[in-house]
């Protein structure tokens, strides 16, 4: 640890040196028809000595893109990223990275994988072996030196990932969802190990930056949390997290902070162009500014049933915990229920609406009708498709028509994803059908057209 930090909390004193500075970074990719699609929008943050910083966001918030910019793997479209005052123009020399998928070389043993970074630095054989062994011991991998990654469990593989990163004694450690491919208990265990190392006096790494979509993980680890908003990614809030380490997740103030962040991530966005799903009034929103959440109808129905079983109101963090879900799994379902007006989110509480109650109580045919009605009115893309098909003579249109429209607001992949969700919803509600061979969408005349 550095001299400026407080060993009990890991918090930095004010004025400690900045390691990485991100200023006004914008990143956009270019869509197939040439329009730029912003992924990151005017992001500024810094990483100082002695702190752990979390970038917390849902999928689509560009958090991994931001981390790769900081690592010097990709260049921002605008803005600057500097390491110790030097603007990056290539892989960041002062950091090491831990990957979500581990990124180990399967043909090298644990020892060889850990030695890789040292080899690249040109460290001699003897010293290389010693340092690698020390790192392997520190992360609790001793005995596995000659194993190949494919022989190890996920948790052990990620330990190799950490050993490989820490052995080069990076100034800052970058982590891209390092625990999200692991099961809950293994993740918890490895997080604790990491914090134990971090608190050791001679730990050479001076700061850590973690990207995560897991709210509790961010609150357990971080001294500062940047909550990112989506479409395009931007910093919505910066939260100081001052609880002393080790943190107790059952502590009341801890829970309160988690709740607050849940509210932030599900609730109404303060920025005018609403990219966050709120209860849409019928007829409101357009397919590009209100994308459909990535949820299946079955999943959303399941959520509503659980909600009714809980008496119609439930605390989201608690529910997620109960179901051992993470935000990325649970929130799209919540969004879908909100879009359709079947439930509402208030702070971190999910509450069922009257329509929602009827929907859950109904039999399969009735619930399909309710779904069809709500989807046609409230889900902008579904509505747009129904109207467009209704306006044609034979109720037939190619998918290309809708994809072209969607490409104005989404990347190619996202546009296809959006259409896929809409087709899934449309089929479930028997609003329209889709022929995968011809790429034609066809109106279902019983339900699809307005007032027929």
């Amino acid at each position: 640890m550095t001299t400026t930090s407080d060993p009990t909390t890991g918090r930095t004193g004010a004025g400690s040196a900045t390691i990485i500075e991100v200023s006004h970074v914008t990143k956009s990719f270019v869509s197939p028809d040439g329009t730029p699609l912003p992924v990151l929008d005017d992001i500024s943050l810094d990483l100082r000595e002695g702190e752990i910083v979390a970038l917390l966001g849902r999928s689509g918030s560009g958090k991994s893109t931001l981390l790769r910019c900081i690592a010097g793997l990709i260049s921002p479209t605008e803005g600057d990223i500097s390491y110790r005052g030097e603007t990056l123009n290539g892989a960041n020399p002062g950091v090491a990275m831990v990957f979500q998928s581990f990124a180990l070389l399967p043909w090298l043993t644990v020892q060889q994988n850990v030695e890789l970074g040292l080899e690249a630095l040109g460290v001699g054989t003897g010293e290389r072996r010693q340092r690698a062994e020390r790192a392997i011991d520190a992360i609790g991998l001793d005995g596995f030196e000659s194993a190949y990654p494919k022989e190890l469990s996920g948790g052990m593989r990620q330990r190799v990932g950490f050993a490989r990163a820490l052995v080069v004694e990076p100034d800052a450690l970058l982590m891209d969802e390092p625990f999200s491919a692991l099961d809950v208990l293994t993740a918890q265990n490895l997080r604790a190990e990491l914090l134990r190392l971090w608190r050791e006096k001679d730990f050479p790494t001076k700061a850590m930056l973690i990207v995560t979509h897991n709210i509790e993980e961010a609150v357990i680890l971080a001294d500062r949390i940047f909550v990112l908003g989506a479409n395009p990614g931007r910093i919505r809030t910066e939260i100081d997290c001052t609880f002393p380490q080790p943190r107790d997740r059952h502590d009341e103030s801890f829970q309160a902070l988690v709740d607050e962040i849940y509210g932030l991530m599900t609730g109404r966005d303060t920025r005018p162009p609403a990219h966050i799903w709120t209860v849409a009034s019928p007829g409101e929103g357009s397919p590009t500014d209100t994308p459909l959440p990535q949820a299946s109808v079955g999943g959303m129905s399941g959520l509503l049933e659980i909600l009714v079983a809980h008496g119609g109101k439930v605390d989201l963090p608690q529910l997620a915990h109960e179901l051992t879900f993470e935000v990325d799994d649970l929130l799209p379902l919540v969004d879908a229920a909100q879009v359709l007006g079947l439930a509402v989110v208030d702070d971190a509480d999910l509450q069922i609406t009257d329509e929602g109650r009827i929907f859950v109580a109904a039999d399969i045919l009735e619930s399909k009708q309710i779904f069809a009605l709500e989807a046609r009115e409230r889900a902008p893309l579904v509505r747009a498709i129904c109207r467009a098909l209704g306006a044609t003579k034979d109720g037939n249109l190619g998918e290309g028509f809708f994809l072209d429209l969607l490409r104005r607001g989404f990347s190619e992949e996202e546009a296809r994803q959006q259409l896929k969700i809409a087709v899934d919803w449309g089929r479930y509600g028997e609003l329209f059908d889709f022929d995968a061979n011809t790429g034609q969408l066809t109106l279902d005349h019983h339900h699809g057209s307005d007032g027929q």
Partner: protein
Amino acid sequence: MDLVVGAGIIALLYAVVRLGQSMAVNFTPGRTPVIISTDIADVPYYAARSLLRMFIALALSTVFTLVYGTAAARLRRAEKVLVPILDILQSIPILVFLPIALTFFITLFPNNLLGLELAAIFVIFTSQAWNMTFSFYHSLISQPTELDEAARMYRLTKWQRFWKLDVPSSMIGLVWNMMMSMGGGWFFLTASEAVTVFIKGHGHSESLPGMGSYMAAAVAHGSFTEVTIAIVVMVLLVVGTNFLVFRPLVAWSDKFRMESSESAEKPKSIILNLLRRSSIPRLAGHVSRPVGRALDRITRPFGLAEYPLRTDVRKRHIGDIIFWSVIVGATATFAVIGLVYLNAHLGFTRFPSLIGFGFATFARVVVLLVISTIIWVPVGVKIGMSPKLARYAQPIVQVLASFPAILLFPFATLIFINLGIPLDYGAIVLMMLGAQWYILFNVIAGASSIPNDLREMMVSMRLTRSQRWRKVILPAIFPAYVTGGITAAGGAWNASIVAELVSWHHHTLNAFGLGNYIATASAQGKFALLIAGGIVMSAFVVVVNRLFWRRLYRMAESRFTL
């Protein structure tokens, strides 16, 4: 254990040195022909010479693959040129290279047999290198992003990146394609050992010691026994290299598999186990480690496997302009030279008749594909659906596919002569002898990968025979069948050059077709005709691939992938 392995290695080294010495004997084309004896005592020597030729070509193909593939995948501008060139090279019938290579290498080494030797090696190389290079290039560009990021993040040098990441991650595909290339190479080996060399317009029949020339001599004698010996030895060579070299290589390369879990059925090899249990690996480690360290040091000045995030746009544009001007200029120059040459030597009015020849051969290719499909799809499905049969049949079919069908041509020719079958039809059979196995091989692979639950479903739903075929089996093997069909068609086009003009003893049979045209042109040393024929054949291959196979491929990928 060590004794066996050690003795094997010493014997191998001795043989290579001795054979290497005899490659460069003096010889003047047309005056001191190399006499190929058909004495059975000489057969091992001929077999060894052929084998050495094959492995030298394979080594060259590997080096070419690593260099060309890396350049195509890592250099932004080069990729745009190198990949199309490779695509063109791939569609050129390989035997067109032979007379050109002969002329070139004999001029390079006048009075030495090395010229013939190198020409043969070059032809085998052209039959092996392209698919290996494509495989390597594809592995490189489809490398997992996170491994690429890790390599850059951990600041590997260019050499470390190549040696620790690029080569290992492509290893499985590379080894597999080496094995396939080796199989295909036997065909061209036998075709390139007995050749006609042109000096000042006069053709001289020349031979390199080897199994191909042994066969040619046997055919010239009209000796049934000698032809049979040649075939048996060839089978032994194909099976032997598979067992001693490629099985172990495939089993070894399994450690480079990307999937993070162990594969259920690992390829095994007795030879590899033998080697692993000997002290060879330890010894090899002792030798290679200092070499590795030295290479690491030497290549360090070449810098990191990194590129700057920001580049000067103006500088890049200027670079682009210079690069493309050079490329366009060079292409145009070559095109003009080529056209002038063709115009002077044969004129463009010849092309329509050439296309007519092409259609004749094309018809043969179509017929043989249809016949092979009708025969081998049911058989392949039968074999593939039974795991036990598949295990035994797969290696046998692989040997059949590798076996140079040319060696069977004399028998077939004999039959055609006796029964009075014109080669116009007979050539279809000859071309099919080699090509059909690719269809069988792939159909077996496709059928054996039909998931078990689908098979159980067919039974439990009581699908009728025709329902099973229409609804489950045919769609499931479709992607594999398409792969087999492309390979078989390519093989058939290549084979047409040797199949549409055959001889036995004093008889010669001709078939109307582009293959016959090319074979005649190369027998008479008429380069312009040869090149024109090659161009038309390549055009046929490319057009059919684009219009037919590629579409099937896309359909297979989008609809019938299990």
